[in-house]
């Protein structure tokens, strides 16, 4: 089993959701996060409109899902295709992190492993 965590643009969330369901990944959740990557945060007014500062607070959405091993490549491809900006791909389109998961438990039934996903 594979955990996929993807940092994506908040405005691409609905397209990513559709793409995930289309490849059969029916369970995932989103976290709204802030941080910085190559975009280096956002410039904001700090006080009464006189001065600005750059804050490491670029709004992003973190997608988290766990899938069966054989779905890994299909899900990654679905995210890449749906999260990428239309037109020219741009800095800030996001990043995907993949890691192994040792076990999964379905709370309702106590099922374990891939059948619990």
């Amino acid at each position, binding site marked *: 089993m594979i955990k996929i965590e993807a940092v994506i643009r908040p405005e691409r969330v609905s397209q990513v959701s559709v793409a995930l369901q289309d490849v059969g990944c029916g369970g995932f959740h989103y976290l709204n996060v802030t941080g910085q990557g190559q975009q280096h945060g956002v410039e904001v007014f700090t006080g009464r*409109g006189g001065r600005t500062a750059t804050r490491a607070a670029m709004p992003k959405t973190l997608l988290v899902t766990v899938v069966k091993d054989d779905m890994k490549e299909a899900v990654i491809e679905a995210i890449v295709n749906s999260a990428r900006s239309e037109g020219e791909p741009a800095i800030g389109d996001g990043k995907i992190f993949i890691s192994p998961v040792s076990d999964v438990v379905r709370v309702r039934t106590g099922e374990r492993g891939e059948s619990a996903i």
Partner: protein
Amino acid sequence: MDSGSIAWMLTASALVLLMTPGLAFFYGGLVRAKNVVSTIMYSFIAMSLATVVWLLWGYSLAFGSGSAFIGDLSFIGLQGIGIEDGEGVPTLLFVAFQGMFAIITPALITGAFVERFKFTTYLVFLVLWLTLVYAPVCHWVWHENGWLWDMGALDFAGGTVVHINAGIAAVAAAMMVGKRRNPGMEPHNVPYVVLGAGLLWFGWFGFNAGSAVAADTLAVSAFIVTNVAAATAALTWGLISHFRSGRMSAVGVATGAVAGLVAITPASGFVGPMGALAIGFIAGVLCFISVEIINRTGLDDALDVFAVHGVGGIVGALLTGVFAVEAIGGTAGLIEGNGAVMGPQIIGVLATLGYSLVVTLAILFILDKIPGLGLRVGERDEDEGLDISAHGERAHVRDGAD
């Protein structure tokens, strides 16, 4: 009695009351999310505590005959004021209207010490400050026995009594309480700031036009110059922020509106619309510069109370003398050739600055020494946020982990 004036003054009094919750939102939006309830409460509690103080002895000390410097105790608990007393409008209505000014003035000061001032000590401070600073200055300027009134100092709606008074007291408070440990970089809720400024602007029509204490042409004149000054200063501030950084700050426009309203306050019964335009523009520029300068000093006047209310009040008081039109308020200003009007304006400004600074410092110095009081919350309470540590409530609560 004039029923039209009574109707307008009842309305104006309610409008001025609404300025205080407006101020609560204006200030509440500017602080960090963990100090919103605390910041709003500093203002909101003034609506109850200052009303009680005003009823018991505040009005009497401000508007009792007394001496040139302070009233007396003849109206304590509003004794001796019958419901039929008064000319034009009932005295009781004047008491109510003036009571609204006594609410918002100490609330203005709180912008200097938000995010760190101990709430219980603030309650004591509020009572002492109204008694020892607000009531005397109010008496000097607005009672016919007052020495500034006698000298001919012009303050239609409270540029000295309310704004310079609160602005310099804010400096004293910021000095005594010290800097915040970790000030936030951004206002936590810009819509709150704009909503608050909108309510202030709306309520200010009662503040200034109500200071005619009648439903007459002077009230109409005060109404229009109030709007002109607020609009001009807001636009000025917004344009400065746009020229400085390429974008127009909403907080900047809101702050500019307040600066314009402050500056027109003393002038609102004396100047015409073009004078108001000039006052709004000059206040917008000078208050903006003051914010920049004071932010570079070590003084943590957190929400720029002095830069907006102190400087705005001083600019307004002096420009009242410059732009006064005899046909409007009965006094000619510098431009109409009456240079003599400037002397009392300058003296009024200096006297208010000096008296309020010294007495506010003294009150805070003593409160800091009293066991069980003290000015500042503990470091952990400050880090946790005053909403939880002082009030046990949070501004924004969602289900789940939050």
